[in-house]
């Protein structure tokens, strides 16, 4: 069986100007789009709390949202994942703990209003949802808990800190309950009949809770992007070393092109951009460089075989010769993703869909971006050489493997 019978002779390179132009426009549009609208950053990068809930009864995302608002949440983001009959939703909240600036003030007032308490210092740590304060006399832990809860902030625990004594004063720490508890409480209040218990097959279930602090989020993002850039640079160096300096930029630009195009997927679909998205970008990077190298390798080989032929023609031959392989590999890798597309929900589905798009883009860029750039660099060198009076023109020299 063969996809392509005999030799093809399609003029890929002849259309390179149109392709490069179209790609450039699209790339710039995506970059502008990112600058204007930004990604839908996931909690991995933006910080915040993510909760995945599965309901037993049939319910829509809009109903979940309304219920959560009724239960006291402000602007929850609700997204349905999987098929409709799975009734599974992701709720995202900006905050990390229940403690807000206003809540901390209210709690301070409530604690100070407790009978016979003289508060000497009062510290709040909003990032971690902790309140620490020192009093002259001893206070009952339960009283503090009741006071803070009464002021509107859920309490996880109240502890008397070590070193408390009659002379030094008594120090207490209030740990506010997390955002996930607030969300659960809101859903229970807003949607009658909701009961969370994953052990019980008949009850609803909180399947996942992710919380990422704002500082760590920024750190994760920067590290992810740094890794991406460094990987690209290393690939450029290897390609320049193994092939020719003129090949390196083409491979790099093709990689950048693919990364931007896949980023465009996240921009347009508004899918969450998180650590898994970085993994997708990395996969595409690997796939695209593989594809580009295969074509480059063929170009290098044909250059030895057809010495003296103009480079565009050689590249055309190389692309045509490898066409069957290009289609096959892309198709087969796509085929292996079919399983993920059918059975994947949420993150896995997003992963497979973005990958599929990336494979299309990666295959395209090897032909229309990476190769034309080699021609362009070659032409420039030829023009320079002519200006310099060298008669030999721009024939590239091939390094044999």
């Amino acid at each position: 069986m063969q996809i392509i019978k005999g030799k093809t002779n399609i003029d890929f390179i002849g259309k390179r100007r149109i392709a490069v132009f179209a790609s450039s426009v699209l790339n710039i549009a995506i970059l502008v789009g990112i600058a204007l609208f930004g990604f839908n950053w996931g909690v991995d990068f933006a910080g915040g709390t993510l909760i995945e809930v599965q309901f037993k009864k049939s319910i829509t995302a809009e109903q979940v949202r309304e219920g959560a608002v009724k239960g006291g949440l402000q602007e929850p983001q609700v997204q349905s994942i999987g098929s409709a009959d799975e009734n599974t939703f992701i709720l995202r909240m900006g905050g990390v703990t229940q403690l807000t600036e206003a809540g901390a003030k209210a709690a301070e007032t409530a604690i100070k209003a407790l009978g016979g308490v003289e508060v000497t210092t009062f510290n709040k740590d909003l990032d971690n949802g902790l309140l620490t304060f020192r009093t002259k006399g001893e206070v009952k832990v339960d009283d503090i808990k009741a006071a803070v809860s009464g002021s509107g902030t859920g309490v996880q625990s109240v502890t008397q800190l070590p070193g408390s004594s009659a002379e030094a004063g008594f120090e207490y720490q209030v740990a506010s309950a997390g955002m996930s508890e607030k969300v659960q409480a809101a859903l229970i209040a807003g949607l009658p009949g909701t009961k969370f218990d994953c052990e019980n097959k008949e009850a609803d279930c909180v399947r996942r809770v992710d919380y990422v602090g704002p500082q760590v989020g920024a750190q994760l993002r920067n590290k992810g992007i740094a890794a991406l850039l460094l990987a690209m640079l290393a690939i450029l160096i290897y390609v320049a070393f193994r092939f020719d300096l003129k090949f390196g930029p083409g491979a790099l630009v093709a990689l950048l092109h693919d990364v931007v195009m896949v980023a465009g997927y996240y921009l347009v679909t508004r899918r969450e951009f998180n650590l898994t998205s970085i993994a997708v970008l990395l996969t595409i990077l690997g796939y695209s460089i593989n594809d580009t190298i295969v074509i480059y390798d063929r170009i290098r080989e044909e250059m030895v075989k057809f010495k003296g032929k103009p480079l565009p023609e050689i590249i055309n031959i190389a692309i045509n010769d490898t066409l069957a392989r290009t289609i096959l590999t892309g198709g087969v890798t796509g085929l292996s993703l079919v399983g993920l597309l059918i059975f994947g929900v949420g993150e896995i589905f997003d992963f497979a869909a973005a990958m599929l798009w990336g494979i299309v883009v990666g295959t395209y860029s090897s032909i229309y971006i990476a190769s034309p750039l080699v021609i362009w660099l070659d032409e420039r060198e030829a023009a320079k050489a002519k200006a310099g009076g060298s008669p030999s023109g721009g024939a590239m020299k091939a390094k044999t493997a």
Partner: protein
Amino acid sequence: MDRSWWTRLALVVAVALGSVWFLTPTYYSLFVLDRADRNDVAKLEKVLPFWSAPAKYRLSLGLDLQGGIHLVLRVDTKTALGKRAERLGQQMVSYIDGKKLGKLSAVANTETYEVTLTAADAAAMDGIEKELLATFRDFSKVSRNAGVLVLKLDAAQVDFLMADAVDQAMLVVRKRIDKWGVAEVDVRKLGTDSIQISLPGEKDPERAKELIGTTAQLEFRIVEAHGDLFKDLYTNTPPDPSAGITLVTSRQDPDGNEPETPYLSGTDKNKLLAYVAGKGGEGKQVLLHCVETPNNKSCLRYVTWLVQANGLSGENLVGADAYNDPQTNNIVVSYEFNEQGGKLSEDLTGKNIGRLMGIVLDDNLLSAPVIRDKIGTRGQITLGRSGNREQRFKEAQILALALKSGALPAPVSIGETRQVGAALGDELIKKGTTAALVGLALVIVFMAIYYKLAGVVADVALVLNGLLILTGLALFNATLTLPGIAGFVLTLGIAVDANVLINERIREELAAGKAARVAVDQGYDRAFWTIFDAHITTLIAGFILQQTGTGPVQGFATTLIIGIIASLFTSIVVTRVITTYLVHGRNATTVSI
């Protein structure tokens, strides 16, 4: 068939068999053991057949696949260091004051760790500068302007103190998690300022707050003789047999790590604590000492000690260090109190010479050295002579860290928590495996149809490639995560690509009219460099991601690296061994491709 072919065949068979062998513990842990016991190495060892690979080479599932909590704590090393600079500045002032060299005032910059010292009398500064630089060797001079001297903490010292702050926080965190009794906890340093904790099976992410809530409580409490207290307790009100509490009457450890008179021992900390709660008597308390496993990773069991209810707080400790005393060749831990602590210590030790001093961290009795003298601001603990030297030094370092943890609390905050319910984890495994298998099946069927026999050969390589990736992950003790599965899919794609490249080449050579055997050999030779280049570039990317990435990115990179190496082997060596046999070995004149 020449000799090199036989050698290569032997290699391929050995690798394939080795791979299956190394995967036996993984198979048993995932499919034979109950889900609850999946992480229990001891139970795994029991069910493994005698010929199996060691249980430690098993592929464990990442928290995203098996459920549990992943936590990242950030240690605010900068603040800790800023405070340290402030304190050192104060020490300089009092040191110079003590030497009667002049009056100084110090201001520390908590960002740059610079200490600006101003002398009341500018003329005295020359002498002060000389004295300070000779004594405070961790500082170097930045500038000097008449009576104003600026000193800066050396970069090497800054790095050391930062790492030290993280180590201290790690120790405290480990001790606290230990209290929860969670099996298979993994605590490790992440980067320069974070601690990563994996708690498989743990359900309540809010408990993480217990780890950061307060700073560690370190105390010195005098150990009381407990006589027959535990023996009487054990005989009069025997514990519930299921609690696993036993009475130990003979002294087992000659080095004072365990009490001399009958004591209680148990593996379940909470049950043991509940049993002895309030049984110490007036003004006394029963505490537990954790007898650690040889690798110091977790508690083997807990034994009971009786101590006084009140003691000296570690708040007043200024520092502690473990070192080898060259004069006596003993391993010692030296520590230092501030002035107030020194007075309290003098008082406490003076009254109790000859007794044991219990060093208690968060209600855990870490060590109980004998008090030899009245100890003021500076004290020294000499470690016993049991165990090997290396292990003792490690113990000393842990003790020094514990002592310091009372002295330099670096603020710790929660950077990240990720909790996955076990139900979701199971579902992800099920769906992930189904998805991967469906993808694999589609590819296998397609290759067989498209390339006929050559496709079947490629399929064999593909399946072996999959096995090798799993083996590689198991060998390196890596965990299989969701991004890891993504890396798996990519590598399978690349492995298929290698075979496609080879087969297309062979077809080309056949189309050019070459004989079957020549076509196969040239096809392989020509495709080799293409495959090599493509694999190496991806490998480079993989290594960089492995080095610079965090969490999921790293999991992806590990799978990718192992997969690429496996793919090079399967596509270049394995398929060629089979194809060579099919063509040369059978003297074929046609190729099924």
